[in-house]
């Protein structure tokens, strides 16, 4: 395999992992927001 292959894998895995984790965090936040009373959802 060429050097460019390993560079591409490193960048793609990093970006995709961070994107998937971010998506999970955002979705979990939305889901939990629906289960928690309004008065406890006030962000500073």
């Amino acid at each position, binding site marked *: 395999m060429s050097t460019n292959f390993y560079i591409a894998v490193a960048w793609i895995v990093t970006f995709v992992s961070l994107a998937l984790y971010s998506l999970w965090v*955002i979705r979990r936040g939305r889901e939990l927001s629906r289960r928690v009373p309004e008065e406890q959802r006030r*962000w500073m």
Partner: protein
Amino acid sequence: MTTEPAPQRPVPTSTGSRVTHVLGIASLVGLAELVLFGLVISPADAQLGETIRILYMHVPTVSVAYLAFVITAVASVAYLWKRTEFWDLLAASAAEIGVLFFALTIFNGMMWGKVTWGVYWRWEPRLVTTTVLMLTYVGYLVVRSIPTDPRTRGTVSAVIGIMAVVNIPITHKAVDWWRGLHQSRTIFGTVDPEMRGTQLFATYLGLLVFMVLFAWLLIHRFRVAWLAERAADEGLRGALAERRAEGGATA
């Protein structure tokens, strides 16, 4: 004279806020710029060749991981002192993000190792200490996932969070203390002094962008953890009310 009622702030329906929107947009713009500078504009290095482009991911991810673990340690100390939920959840949120970034650091390092050394992994000093550091924080997250009362969980994990941070300087200095294959430090001491122009810019840009992304993730992850605690309280309250209603019906 009548006074106008103060305008009500809208109730958030997610973990987002004005601050996270700004940080999120800044992260996206920064990541696009990093792709441009890291993969297109900056030239190959005289010594490292094209593999320097892997270091544009490796250096920022390890920096964020170290920062996250230090935040975990500081928040753990604050928790043992103040005993408030805020510090406990902050420590846990930072540790989880730190583990993700550290896993990516190891993965990028393996890609670099394959090109440079011909193998993905060598049991040399830096990689041994890195493995110990990673396992310690995975252990921290495992301990937090054990069902127990929040105070016990907070105390035990705070002690681990404080002890684990000692591994960071050991891992960081491993390349100086023991002879190994890993190249010498590139951050906190030298962002390679030979580095110039767009290479140096891409390195610092990566550091900045990943720090902003980390701040964005940490705020969201903390709020998720906080909401999860409230949801658990609500669930418990609901179950108790149901039990009471059942008791009243049978009496």
